[in-house]
Structure formats: C-alpha cells, structure tokens
C-alpha cells in the first residue's frame, strides 16, 4: 500500500533562517506531488505541484521554492524565512483522482 511521510512534525525557526521540509512517498511510482499551506483559520492553498522529476509548477508567488530530486521525494525550501511563512504545511500525492496527504509540518517563524 502507498504511504506518505512528511517531516518534521513541528519546526520553530527564526526570521531569516533557511528552511527545508521533506516529503517522501512509498508504494507508488511517478506520482503527482503537491505542497499546500494552511494559514491560521484559512483553507488549503496549493503552493507547488510536480508531475515528474525536476518538473515543478508554482501556483503563487512567494518566498518558497520546491524541488523534486527523485521520483518519490518532494522538498520545500526557503533561503530566508519571513514571519508570514508561518503555517501548517502539507505534502500530498495523487492517485486516480484522489489526493492523499501527509501528517503535516507546523512551522512557526519567530
């Protein structure tokens, strides 16, 4: 069966520090991969999606970037975090019209 792993679960970072969140999927090949953010009291905003290795589409202009160095690995990064980057970040993969989510990372930028 397919599983999705996302870490860390919680992260507290100072403003201006770099960020790297990792997501890996097991049990499937060539999945579509997604990064979402849920700001406090808001819905899920799609940040990036990828249909294959090295193929990244950005949905909103922001301070973040994404990379897909391997088929089942998706990384969310920032060179310098802003206060507004705080939120709950979710990785997802899709199979047969359904998106399946990881457990999420709570990022607090202080």
């Amino acid at each position, binding site marked *: 069966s397919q599983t999705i792993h996302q870490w860390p679960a919680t992260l507290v970072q100072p403003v201006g520090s770099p960020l790297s969140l990792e997501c890996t999927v097991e049990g499937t090949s060539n999945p*579509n991969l*997604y990064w979402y953010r849920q700001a406090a009291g808001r*819905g*899920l905003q799609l940040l990036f999606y990828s249909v294959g290795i090295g193929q990244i589409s950005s949905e909103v202009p922001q301070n973040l970037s994404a990379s897909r160095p391997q088929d089942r690995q998706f990384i969310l990064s920032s060179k310098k975090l802003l206060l507004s980057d705080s939120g709950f970040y*979710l990785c997802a993969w899709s199979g047969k019209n359904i998106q399946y989510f990881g457990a*999420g990372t*709570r990022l607090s930028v202080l």
Partner: protein
Amino acid sequence: DQQVKQNSPSLSVQEGRISILNCDYTNSMFDYFLWYKKYPAEGPTFLISISSIKDKNEDGRFTVFLNKSAKHLSLHIVPSQPGDSAVYFCAASGHSGTYKYIFGTGTRLKVLA
C-alpha cells in the same frame, strides 16, 4: 477569486442527527469533487468523492450530492457521531492531468453528545 466556497464556517449538530455540509463552486469546468475530514495538527483524510457524471455517491454514513446546474454539492453524515467532529473541506478539479484541486475554506463540524 474563491472558486470553491464553503459559506458556513461552523456547524453544530446533535449526536444521531444528520449533518449537512455545503459547498458551492463557480467554475463549470470542474468535474471531480472530493470531501476531506481534518483533525487539528493532522493532514486531511479523504472521505468520499463524486464525478460530474453522477449526482449522488454513498459510502456508509457519508453521502455526497452534486447539483451541477446549481454548482453545488453537499455532504450528508447520518447518523452523526461525536468522532465526526472535525473540519471538513470540499475540493474541486477539472480535467488537467495534474489532478490539481481547489479547496474550500472548510466547515468546522461539532457533534454534540
């Protein structure tokens, strides 16, 4: 522009009664819809889906209804249980091959024992 709207931010229902969560969309190209349940500090869990070729889909206590002419879908939970208390998101997608979904802002359901 919010293409998928959940106009009720919260809903309270007595245990055993029906919960009805609503979702409206604006893009007539949307042809596949999902409902998710989310507990705090966890990722959303897929509940049920519906394709635009159907107007109803059932899975146990959960039923989703789609009214394409009104661009409206609803999730019915019968009977509601305290464990159903969570935030529910609807999501919509069109034919793009990328399976990109637009999510609503969620409705917080509280089932009262």
